[in-house]
């Protein structure tokens, strides 16, 4: 396996004030990898994802997307991307799906989906609309294309948000707890869409508390603890007892919580 990784993160560090939230994280995601990121609340999972597409700027470390490194500069205001143009372009290759959907409330679902392709990638509108309709079909909400986000259920919103990120044809999609804001009965429909994407070899980095997804869909599981990767491996190894004692304790805790719910 000498192919260029779709995403390569090298030694990312991030502090908020005196609080060091990420303490040197590295990771490679190859084509078709589905990596589940697990960890207790506050372990730095969201910050890690947000540092990858520079919604937060890491204090140190490199991000390489599809072989292209995001160039950084340091000024008196701190560290930031050296070129806004490069950052914007690389961001179109990095889809992001948020826990709270973050669909644009003033646009219909269809408008949400063609926004990036038409206005950022400057592709022909008719072509984008046709692709958007196909994507909505695929995630099962074709009949909702002219609705505004406020009139969709949480599960429909999240599927629309996934379609929105797919419309940019990204190389990698980052998911930050995509089902955590959903009512339990709506989790399945979103996971089904994500499972389909995994089957199509989409490269995905998924922060989740869904142990079923981590165990059955991903090909790699990473356990974060106190801003570091505590242990990682295949789901078979990790759930088969090869993870660290902290990970064992974490999954026991998650299971009792699921039983209680």
């Amino acid at each position: 396996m000498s192919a260029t990784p779709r995403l390569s993160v090298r030694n990312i560090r991030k502090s908020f004030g005196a609080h060091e939230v990420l303490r040197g994280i590295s990771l490679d995601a190859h084509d078709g990898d589905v990596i589940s990121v697990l960890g207790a609340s506050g372990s730095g999972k969201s910050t890690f994802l947000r540092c990858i597409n520079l919604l937060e700027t890491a204090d140190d470390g490199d991000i390489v997307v599809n072989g292209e490194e995001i160039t950084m500069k340091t000024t008196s205001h701190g560290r930031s991307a050296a070129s806004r143009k490069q950052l914007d372009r690389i961001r179109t290759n990095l889809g992001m799906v948020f826990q709270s959907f973050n669909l644009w409330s003033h646009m219909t679902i269809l408008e949400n989906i063609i926004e990036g392709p038409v206005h950022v990638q400057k592709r022909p509108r008719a072509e984008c609309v046709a692709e958007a309709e196909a994507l909505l079909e695929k995630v099962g909400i074709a009949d909702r294309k002219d609705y505004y986000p406020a009139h969709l259920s949480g599960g429909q919103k999240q599927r629309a948000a996934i379609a929105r990120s797919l419309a940019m044809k990204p190389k990698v999609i980052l998911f930050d707890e995509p089902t955590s804001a959903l009512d339990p009965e709506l989790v399945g429909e979103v996971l089904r869409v994500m499972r389909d994407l995994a089957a199509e070899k989409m490269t995905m980095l998924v922060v989740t508390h869904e142990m079923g997804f981590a165990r059955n869909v991903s090909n790699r599981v990473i356990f974060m603890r106190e801003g570091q990767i505590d242990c990682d491996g295949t789901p078979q190894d990790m759930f088969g007892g090869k993870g660290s004692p902290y990970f064992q304790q974490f999954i026991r805790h998650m299971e009792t919580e699921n039983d209680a719910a």
Partner: protein
Amino acid sequence: MDFPFLLSTMKALLAATPTTLGLFSLSIFFGGLLALLIVTMRVSNNIVARNFAKGYIFVFRGSPLLIQMFLVFYGLGQFGVIRHSFVWPALREPFVCAVLSLALCTGGYSAEIFRSGLRAVPPGEVEAARAAGMSGFLLLRRIIAPIAFRHALPAYSTEIVLMVKSTALASLVTVWEITGVAQRLISQTYRTMEVFMCAAALYLILNFLILQVLALIEHRLNRHDRRPAERKPSVLSAFFGSRA
């Protein structure tokens, strides 16, 4: 009731209505542009710009519009630089002075209204746009401004209606708009009640029409807040064209 008198009064006031509408629309236009500039400074990271905008808003919201207008009308001519500059022929005109002071004042109010709209933009929606590769003017034009404007519109409508009424102050710097003409008629006829009733009725009609237009815009921009079944495009599409 002396209908012939009311009719002739109405005619005289209607003849002054274009002046009132001119004061109103020009000051809303230039005041709106000014407000965009002030709000940009107000939310910028530059401490000088931010504090200038704060001071501007404080001064123009905190002092009476009438005094601002008198200062522009009687005060600007005191400065040699202005009196000898190329703008003086325009600034000598009462109409221009009135528009200038109305615009300066509404610029301050509108800047605050726009700022409250900006603060209502959900940060998550802005992050989603950044994550999709938007930044700078594109992000402002496609995401931030449309959302902010929708939030600001109810308060901005109020400001617009207040501006229609504020044009009446221009009569005190000798602009012959509706109120000025009404006062002249009263000094000629001494029939205060009838003339002022006519003038008030005219302002009410103007504001009624302006509010209708604003309500239509608001209705159209707030489609995202209504359930699909409640969207009744029939009347609106007559005004704005159908989108289907």
